[in-house]
């Protein structure tokens, strides 16, 4: 076969498994196909094979296959992992249960502390101790290990986690223990904390090792079945697996440490937004992904996503949650999606979410017995969504059910149905505005300097109103917005983020040690990539330092300029820190600066997609016009609006609001006083008027 290339991304979500397939012919012209089929728990790989078949994709012709899955996060939140035994330092087996001692719901005397994933009788200790500088204080004594493992076996433990105090500074005790476990209990699933992270904080690191062990057998089984299923259908490559750090990684590597997949779903969408930004020359982006149950957002500055290791599951204003110290894209997620339920509290106040009607019964308009009004029902009521083209025409909207749900909310509030429906949209929008502020204003960024990229099934419906609220001047709705995450996956690099804690005063003589730490970590990255068949010269690096004023705790991450760190350049680095710090916090101090650790990004391209610009046709969008109707824009009032057929919009077309674009997967609401145009890649750009 000539140079035709087929790239496929599959994404297993809670309800559906999505497929996007790009075929590029020898002339660079590409065609895109999408397909959707049901997610098939517990054998999720079956859904992937189904969707390939449904999309008429022959795995034998696929050159690149990227895969994202919620299998890890589901196993965690549904408590479907395996029984884990924990081995830790003598005197510290309760660290996992003591946790951090905090009680966010602080007036509540009946607060429930999150239960540890390993009960006390399965938490065992070994003598051996390192100092914070990584020096051995007490040698490791493995004589108790056989007894511990026998006990674990007798209790039905299926995976072992190991975490010792200060292993981030010196992992040799963990390494020795792991080696001995492999000898004494061949084949058992085992992981130690330093394999996942080299940062300090023993509770966070212990919990991370425990949760990784908890999902490891499940993820390993899933990935190997997926691999076998694809191979048996003729796929002769190896799938790349989407990671929480916006990169992809090899199946083999992910099978060893699967916890890094925990937030892979949102990550691919945000990476997609960053890549889209490069394509359309928008380096500063607020990315917003609105799905059925949640809205997620993240900020991209100068083309760079931000990766952090301060990630928690099940943490909110009333619960402490569980930390997972792996590289995750910096995002804010709120329980606000199309299926979020509108409810009136005992004191007459309207709320939207976080409870969701889910896929079953779903919004009242699904006609599957849902009685409660959701954001989707309000959007239908206000005629923003076309009741005759609901879910791309696949569902007959049950407007009686939707109206009666809205009416019930209106009755509780003592307002008209229209006011109630507008209220639901406004409250939902306000929840999302506050989430967008958390990733922008709260981090010292002015949203007016950013372009809002909105995707997921619901992003385009709310984006223009959110932009107006935030002072954002431009919204971009990407082509294929509802499967944008899958597109993002195809644009991902093979990427690993290394975080290493190492204290150093930023003073004369410090550069040598810092440079050595970077060089050593880079060598480690190259070796890992090489072991997976990547030419080490093709690996590129980004170096970040984590700095703070001496005596502070929290650090500010700064991208270091290219080239080796030398004493002569420390002043330059320090100036960058002062500048970054002042932007975020309004002041700077005349105090010594120290480094707490490094963050190294290693990445290599693995055949990402190249997009081809299409020629512009005529600017008149009349050919795509399919109807007119009166649409209620909430704060902007009711207006007779032109309705456009999404698939008929071609590059170069322009039109003005008030207007609605109906795509099978999403509805774009173009508010009055804004104007839209379609770019050479099929993305819709909407400029907000004054």
């Amino acid at each position: 076969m000539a140079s035709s290339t087929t790239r496929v991304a599959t994404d297993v979500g809670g309800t559906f498994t999505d497929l996007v397939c790009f075929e590029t012919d020898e002339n660079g012209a590409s065609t895109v196909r999408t397909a959707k089929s049901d997610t098939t728990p517990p054998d999720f790989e079956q859904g992937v094979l189904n969707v390939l078949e449904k999309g008429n994709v022959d795995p034998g012709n696929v050159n690149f296959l990227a895969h994202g899955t919620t299998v890890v996060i589901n196993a965690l939140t549904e408590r479907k992992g395996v029984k884990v035994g924990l081995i830790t330092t003598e005197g510290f087996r309760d660290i996992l249960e003591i946790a951090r001692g905090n009680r966010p719901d602080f007036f509540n005397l009946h607060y429930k502390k999150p239960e540890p994933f390993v009960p006390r009788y399965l938490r065992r200790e070994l003598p051996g101790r390192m100092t914070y500088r990584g020096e051995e204080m007490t040698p490791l004594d493995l004589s108790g290990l056989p007894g511990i493992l026998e006990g674990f076996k007798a209790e039905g433990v299926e995976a072992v986690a190991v975490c010792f105090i200060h292993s981030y500074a010196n992992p040799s005790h963990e390494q020795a223990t792991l080696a001995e476990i492999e000898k004494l209990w061949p084949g058992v699933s085992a992981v130690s904390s330093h394999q996942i992270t080299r940062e300090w904080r023993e509770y966070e690191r212990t919990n991370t090792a425990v949760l990784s062990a908890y999902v490891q057998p499940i993820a390993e089984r899933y990935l190997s079945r997926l691999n076998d299923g694809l191979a048996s259908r003729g796929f002769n490559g190896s799938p790349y697996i989407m990671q929480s750090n916006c990169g992809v990684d090899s199946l083999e590597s992910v099978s060893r440490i699967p916890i890094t997949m925990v937030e892979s779903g949102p990550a691919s969408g945000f990476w997609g937004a960053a890549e889209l930004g490069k394509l359309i020359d928008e380096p500063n982006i607020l990315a917003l992904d609105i799905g059925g149950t949640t809205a997620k957002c993240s900020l991209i500055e100068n083309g760079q996503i931000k990766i952090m290791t301060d990630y928690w599951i099940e943490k909110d204003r009333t619960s402490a949650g569980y930390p997972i110290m792996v590289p995750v894209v910096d995002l804010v997620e709120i329980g606000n999606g199309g299926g979020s339920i509108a409810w009136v509290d005992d004191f007459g106040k309207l709320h939207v979410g976080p409870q969701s009607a889910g896929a079953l019964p779903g919004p009242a308009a699904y006609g599957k017995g849902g009685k409660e009004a959701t954001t989707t029902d309000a959007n239908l009521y206000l005629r923003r969504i076309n009741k005759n083209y609901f879910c791309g025409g696949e569902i007959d909207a049950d407007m009686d059910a939707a109206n009666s749900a809205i009416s019930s909310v209106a009755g509780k509030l003592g307002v008209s149905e229209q006011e109630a429906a507008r209220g639901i949209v406004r409250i939902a929008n306000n929840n999302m505005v506050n989430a967008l502020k958390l990733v922008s204003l709260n981090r010292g960024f002015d949203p007016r300097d950013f372009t809002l990229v909105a995707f997921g099934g619901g992003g385009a419906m709310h984006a223009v109103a959110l932009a107006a609220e935030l002072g954002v001047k431009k919204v971009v709705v990407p082509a294929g917005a509802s499967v944008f995450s899958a597109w993002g996956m195809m644009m991902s690099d093979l990427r690993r983020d290394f975080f290493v804690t190492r204290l150093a005063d930023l003073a004369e003589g410090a550069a040598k040690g810092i440079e050595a730490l970077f060089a050593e970590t880079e060598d480690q990255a190259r070796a890992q990539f090489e072991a997976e068949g990547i030419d080490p010269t093709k690996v590129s690096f980004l170096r970040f330092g984590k700095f703070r004023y001496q005596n502070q705790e929290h650090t500010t991450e700064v991208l270091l300029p290219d080239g080796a760190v030398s004493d002569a350049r420390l002043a330059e680095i320090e100036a960058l820190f002062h500048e970054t710090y002042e932007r975020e916090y309004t002041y700077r101090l005349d105090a010594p600066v120290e480094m707490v650790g490094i963050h190294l990004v290693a990445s290599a391209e693995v055949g990402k997609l190249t997009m081809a610009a299409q020629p512009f046709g005529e600017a008149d969008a009349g050919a795509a016009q399919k109807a007119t109707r009166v649409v209620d824009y909430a704060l902007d009032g009711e207006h007779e609006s032109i309705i456009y057929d999404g698939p008929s919009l071609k590059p170069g077309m322009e039109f003005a609001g008030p207007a609605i674009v109906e795509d099978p997967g999403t509805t774009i609401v173009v508010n009055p006083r804004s104007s839209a145009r379609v770019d050479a890649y099929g993305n819709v750009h909407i400029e907000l008027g004054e």
Partner: protein
Amino acid sequence: MDDAAEIDPFTASVIQASLVAAADEMFAVLRKTAMSPIIYEVLDVGTGVTDGDGNLVSSGAGIPTFVGVLDKAVQRIIDIHGSDAIRPGDMFITNDPYYGGVTHLNDVVIALPVFVDGSLLAWTASIAHWNDVGGRVAGSMSTEATEIFQEGLRLPAIKLFEDGEAVRPVFEIIATNSRLPEFANGDLWAQVAASRIAEKRIGHLVQVHGEKAYRSALSALFNEGQRRGLAGLKTLPEGTFSIEEEQDDGALWRASITISKDRFTVDLRGNPKVRDEPYNTSRDGAVISAQMIFKALTDPTLFANAGSFRALEVLTEPGTVFHATGTAPHGYYFETRIRLYDMLWQCLARAMPERLPAGSFASICGTVLAGEHPDTGRRYTMVEPQMGGWGATAERDGLDAMYSCSHGETYNCPVEIAEARYGLEVGYKSLRDSDEGKGQHSGGKGLSVCYRMRGNALLSAGYSRNRVPVWGLEGGENGGTNGFAVQHPDGTREDRAFASGVALKPGDEVLIDTANGGGWGKP
């Protein structure tokens, strides 16, 4: 929208949510920028927004006993200066319980009046525990203080900024009076940054929605607080409930609580006289104890504003430990406040055992080590409260190793960070090996920690509930007591509850054991 029209409920919701977000953002800023570990790690911090008159509008995460502090501080600042003298560009600082500081001299309040188009519409304020504000001992909290003058620098609600300009002499006086001036300066600026950021958000909010909508949203918010409080009050049994409780030092405290359909009155009159020891609290501090139990029973959600507490009335007698006057010291006021909270809790738990858990270890167990890092030579001050066991409830066992009921979003310092930062060794950190607190449901486990010194240091600490044990409920057993000991390498050991400036040498160990929670129901 027509200006004359009444504000619609959705606009009100939007404004209210933004005010909560502003207080939360202040908290996040303070946490990330502070210098003192007790601020950024222990989060001994509160942030809040009040209206122009000092009525609490919203508060950020942090600790619940700081929620009721900021409004009282702002009201006192307005009292002292008079509203005419408060101008755009001003910022105030107070730490003195006799000048609106409410707690003790270590807790510094910074408050910024927010003006929009010339009208004073809000205050953005924060309170944070500074490591050292001078006084007779490192860390400023001496168990031997007999007058407030020995507890450090007093900042009597003065201007820190005027006309947008820093009042330099004040900064200089503060730095000169602290043993850790760089910490004081870093913490001060962190609080200034927090206030300024919320000021921006509120200014923007008023610009977008107009002053009228802003004011109506606030008044709707206070009304909702009041309605929530009253609704909760209706679920409580009416009547008068009384308690007397003996304290560790033998003193007898008393309280009576009268609940009616629309009033919750806490009468604290007739308690012991103010003392020349640092265990007094201001009246405001006692009111906070009453607010805590009132809130827990009527509306235990995070929703709290001035309206929430309208149905609460607190009666105190000037010149008593719950209403300090003169120059009485306050250093360990928080042990008095938590003892009072715990006593009011016990009083009502007896009346409604299904509604409240049995007693908890209920002490801050504040532990301060001041010394020189053996590896870097830098001076440090470690200020750590301790976790302990919580009481069992009618439904389940108590929680193991949590911070006290006065705390909230408070985090323990990781062992790995403590060892690096202070140059000491943590020998162990585990759940306490004791089965006190048995019951049909058992109390949660306390904590056992060992700090082993590598350098010289001075230890100060205050643990109440050291003699009179944690109370069980409905026949549940008591949960034991809090305490610590200093153990020397030769094996000698001194058990203590309160200590000031105890000299520790390399090899000495501080052994801490906090109480289990009380049991619920007969074992």
